[in-house]
């Protein structure tokens, strides 16, 4: 299988400054990390809060620019054609409120479908409402949705344009246990169709259920990479050991 996503020597530093203050505080969110993901693979990025997981996904989805390094999608550099490559990515961000509160769920998805140039958008949206079991809420205003439903709508939005790569940022946090099972079925179908998935999470069960391989990230560095042992105990051990070392 070919690498669909390749990250090379990625570094991201933030400078907290302002127009008025001269002194700058430098924070390294990602420190020279490299990895690749194969087509149809499901990669977990596990790490504590502040490890750099969300920063990494934001850079892959081209809404944040890296300080150094390259991201290649299908062997094309993301920085050279972000608009084209963005249409290959679906990003479920951690903020489930990133919709228009005074539009219905259906109207929200319909709007975003136009931005992505989705063909036969009405059929696609109806199918998604069916699959995600919130068909009866499609004409309700977004601000009447529960947190779990908002999260479902975020996932639905990311699937609208049938992306090659799906990025999940703490995606199942507010999902109830019953629907968690449903997500497993949905993602398995997507995987069977060749969709590549990257899961950024601090929840080990998310990695256990959804991922083939795991990278543990801490303080912007990859501290461990595994393919064989994805058990809870083993992953906790790796994270704890690193914590003690530091």
């Amino acid at each position, binding site marked *: 299988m070919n690498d669909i996503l390749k990250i090379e020597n990625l570094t991201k530093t933030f400078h907290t400054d302002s127009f008025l203050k001269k002194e700058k505080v430098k924070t390294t969110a990602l420190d020279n990390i490299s990895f690749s993901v194969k087509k149809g693979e499901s990669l977990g990025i596990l790490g504590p809060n502040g490890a750099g997981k969300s920063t990494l996904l934001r850079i892959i989805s081209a809404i944040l620019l890296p300080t150094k390094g390259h991201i290649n999608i299908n062997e094309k550099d993301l920085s050279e054609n972000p608009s084209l490559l963005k249409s290959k990515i679906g990003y479920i961000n951690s903020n489930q409120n990133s919709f228009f509160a005074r539009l219905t769920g259906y109207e929200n998805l319909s709007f975003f479908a136009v931005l992505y140039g989705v063909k036969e958008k009405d059929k696609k949206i109806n199918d998604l409402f069916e699959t995600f079991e919130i068909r009866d809420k499609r004409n309700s205003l977004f601000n009447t949705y529960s947190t779990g439903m908002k999260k479902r709508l975020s996932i639905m939005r990311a699937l609208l*344009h049938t992306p090659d790569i799906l990025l999940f940022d703490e995606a199942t946090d507010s999902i109830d246990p019953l629907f968690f099972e449903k997500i497993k079925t949905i993602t398995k179908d997507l995987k069977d169709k060749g969709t590549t998935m990257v899961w950024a999470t601090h929840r080990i069960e998310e990695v256990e259920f959804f991922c083939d391989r795991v990278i543990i990230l801490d303080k912007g560095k990859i501290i461990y990479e595994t393919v064989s042992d994805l058990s809870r105990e083993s992953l906790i051990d790796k994270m704890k050991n690193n914590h003690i070392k530091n």
Partner: protein
Amino acid sequence: MNTNILSVIKAFIIKDAKIEKRYHLHFLFQFLKILTTLTIYYFLSKLIIYKNTDYSIKSYFSFILIGISFFSILRVGLTAFTEELIRSINTGVLESLMMSPVPASLIILCSSIWKHIFNFFRIFMYFIIGIFLFNANIMMPDIFSLIVVIILSLIIFSSLGLISSSLVIFVKRSDPVNWILGQIFFIFGGVLFPVKILPAPLQVFSKMIPLTYALDSFRSIFLSGHNIVDFKKDVLILFIFACVLAPLSLFIFNRMIKKAKASGTLYQH
């Protein structure tokens, strides 16, 4: 998969119109606001004997009607982008919009279209109430001249708004900038009184402000029944302002977006 620019513009207009429709009392409040504003100016105008000979006008009220109704193009142009930008940063929608393949500048430009459409509806209401309730002396406009001046005004004032919204991206507040600009334009642009009555040194400010030329053009159209040939000097100055400000504002905005994407501050407020 291909994102069509016209479809994107249409989607933004439909989205904003639907949101507007859900604020049921907004139309009524706008109507009442216009009615009370015009009532106040109508009775104030009764106290003022206007001696301007530039326009063949019969009342000061008609002069003000053009001033305050078309000043709104400037106000909306200045504030539309910043309001939308701040709102979408606060709700987290900006991040979702930026994830799409649509360029950032197009997203921001599209987010103001509905506000301008709604503002033209407000200007229309100003005219209807002004003419039918307060007998304003308005002449039938030359449509071509009117469209040219409206388009140039939209480009100029939206460009200023785009520059102002670039400031929002970095300093996260542009209300003071908009307020100061708005006040300067209001005083020196000839909204409520002709700039000729200002002391000569202050008239220099008026000559540097595009609003002065825009309002002069609108008054020539509606109060004197002139067409574009009669006020070609004003149109030429507006055209130069538009040619300079439009590319400059897009350049500044795109630079600021790039810097904010690099610094990670684009989605924070």
